[in-house]
């Protein structure tokens, strides 16, 4: 029915208005709602995409809806999906959080959509369930590691650390110079997880099969020394007094501002922060560099990588064809160019034909060697295992503010993980 209506509309517009009809691509019409999170970059890029798409397809109306991020956002997405009230197209994490959405039941399969031919298989694997692919990349790939302030490093004559001991030695010099060595922002608790999550390359370097064993309930954080290290690192920077005074109340934008303006030297974060810096503090974009979270061995220095967040269509959508077309537009080289234009380039794309502009900010060019030939990287645990405990961010706040020792924090996280595995109905729990 929509098809006939569509053709009727097309006919009417081409005949009636005598418009130039060289557009071979079928024009779309209809209505979509598009749910995104309220981060400034997400809003900026979503608005740019919608503007470009509706300009090419004037008969399409797309309403952008905004939700909070973090746990509050998880709640909204899960509840709206479960109650059949989800927006037609929406943005959400890939990997373990995607698995928790019950995709086979709630999401529209996109396996056969033409744009999937250009999407890298490594990305498809983190948005697949039951043999179907459900997502398309919303953003470039990311790395989890540590932002540092380049002018401060130059001023104090510091080198980018390759081991944790070098990192701590740098911190000591920065503290001695009267500066904040490590910025933490527990006012937004999700930011507290980075030291643990971004340490996963170092975990895999020592225990290559940790992810499989973890999923099968055979390996635990608390009983794997390499896995406890992440918690210990979190505790170590607190105990050494390297943190900013207001670490308990500071927020994510505060952290980005501090590392960009040199109020602090290091900020553990995902590289998508580059986009937010470009958006809010563009004058200092060139002052922020990036390195992978160092492990114990300089020879095994590599980056923990994050697959991009993804864009999905709800199974309940009333216009699946339009939804697929819009998602295909976002996951096309044209979509990437619009993103580069709107919020700048924050990392390598997962889509064939998407290019990074020549003048990427230093934090991005610092990250690219880890992805290049000869560089070392490994996916974060949440892309290798469907199990991620929801209370990790509270536990890392505790360990990172000296309330709970690292070993106990790791043990508590193992408890938390068990609930998630049981809810997912995994074998062996």
């Amino acid at each position, binding site marked *: 029915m929509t098809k006939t209506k569509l053709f009727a509309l097309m006919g009417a517009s081409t005949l009636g208005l005598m418009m130039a009809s060289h557009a071979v691509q079928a024009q779309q019409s209809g209505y979509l709602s598009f749910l995104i999170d309220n981060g400034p970059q997400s809003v900026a890029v979503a608005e740019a995409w919608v503007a470009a798409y509706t300009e090419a397809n004037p008969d399409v109306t797309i309403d952008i809806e905004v939700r909070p991020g973090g*746990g509050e956002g*998880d709640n909204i997405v899960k509840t709206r999906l*479960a109650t059949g009230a989800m927006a037609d197209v929406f943005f959400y994490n890939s990997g373990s959080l995607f698995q928790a959405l019950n995709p086979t039941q709630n999401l529209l399969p996109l396996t056969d959509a033409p744009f999937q031919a250009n999407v890298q298989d490594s990305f498809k694997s983190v948005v697949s369930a039951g043999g179907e692919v459900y997502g398309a990349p919303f953003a470039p790939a990311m790395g989890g590691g540590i932002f540092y302030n380049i002018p401060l490093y130059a001023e104090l004559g510091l080198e980018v650390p390759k081991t944790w001991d070098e990192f701590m030695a740098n911190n000591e010099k920065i503290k001695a110079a009267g500066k904040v060595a490590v910025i933490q922002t527990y006012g937004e608790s999700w930011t507290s997880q980075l030291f643990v999550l971004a340490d996963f390359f170092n975990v895999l370097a020592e225990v290559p099969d940790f992810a499989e064993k973890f999923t099968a309930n055979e390996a635990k954080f608390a009983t794997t020394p390499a896995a406890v290290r992440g918690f210990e690192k979190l505790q170590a920077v607190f105990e050494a007094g390297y943190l900013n005074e*207001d670490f*308990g109340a500071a927020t994510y934008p505060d952290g980005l501002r501090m590392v960009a303006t040199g109020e602090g030297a290091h900020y553990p974060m995902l590289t998508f922060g580059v986009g937010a810096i470009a958006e809010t503090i563009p004058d200092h974009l060139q002052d922020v560099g990036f390195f992978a979270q160092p492990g114990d061995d300089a020879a095994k220095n590599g980056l923990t990588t994050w697959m991009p967040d993804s864009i999905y269509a709800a199974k309940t959508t009333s216009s699946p064809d339009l939804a697929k077309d819009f998602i295909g537009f976002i996951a096309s080289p044209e979509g990437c160019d619009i993103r580069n234009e709107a919020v700048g380039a924050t990392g390598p794309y997962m889509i064939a034909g998407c290019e990074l502009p020549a003048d990427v900010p230093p934090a991005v060019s610092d990250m690219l060697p880890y992805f290049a030939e000869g560089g070392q990287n490994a996916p974060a645990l949440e892309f290798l295992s469907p199990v991620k405990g929801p209370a990790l961010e*509270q536990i890392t706040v505790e360990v990172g503010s000296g*309330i709970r020792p690292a070993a106990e924090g790791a043990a508590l996280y193992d408890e938390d993980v068990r*609930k998630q595995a049981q*809810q997912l109905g995994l074998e062996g729990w």
Partner: protein
Amino acid sequence: MTAAAAPALKAQRRSLYPSWFYAPAAVIYAVLFLAPTFASLYFSLTRWSLSSAVFIGFENFAQFFREPFLIQGLVNTVVYAAISSGLKVVLGMLLALMLTSQIMGRGYLRSVIFFPVLVSTVGVGMTFTVLMHPTNGMINEALSLIGIKGPGWLVDPKLALFSVALVDVWKGVGLATVIYIAGLVAIPKDYYEAARIDGATPLQNFFYVTLPLSRPATATVITLSFIGGLRTFDLIWAMTKGGPGFASDTVASVIYKQYQAGFYGLSTAGNVVLFILIAVLVVPLTMFLNRKQGFE
């Protein structure tokens, strides 16, 4: 059935209206209250994903009581309720005494004290979060002017719960004051005259006349604020989200976090626990307070 029918018949004889007038209210009550209550009892025994539910017996309850932070949450809940209702009783009484005496601008002061009750709780929470910021907050900046280094009100795990409870008192004391004002005004003047003839001091006046005779008001204030404190959620969520870590978690915020994580069965089990907890604490409390009231 017959036992229920007998009193209904008796009531019918006295009532002007036929008993089916109760039907609309009964339907609403059954659909919106009874049905969800019994449904939640069932779902608390399942692993539930909103679309499918697997029966797992009492495992959710076992899990809920294994939550390492649940015990702390329970203690926090009771501590929070006790602090906020205790302070509301004391401060509400003192403010009511002041506002029933002959002071300047009494009407204005009464509205000022009551005003915070009218403001949205979440709004109050967000405002105080800004005021209580450890380094840029107005409270600590004011303290630093007189040479005191203010504590991290909401970020110190030992203080966070108390800070939130204090804000709860600030917001709720107006209501307690109004209840006390009504109670104090209702005390007959004869008692005070008799006390004056007996040569009672103002302090004796308060302890032997005002305090015993305002017991009904005290019972109301304690019950209302204690129940409110037990199931408090909005203020805590707006200010600390149970943090830092789990330091200011209450039963309600633990339940909400389980719901947020998609553990619907587990969080429903938590609600059943909260329901029982409130019943166990509040039923004896009200019985105690009301019995004393009967003796007066």
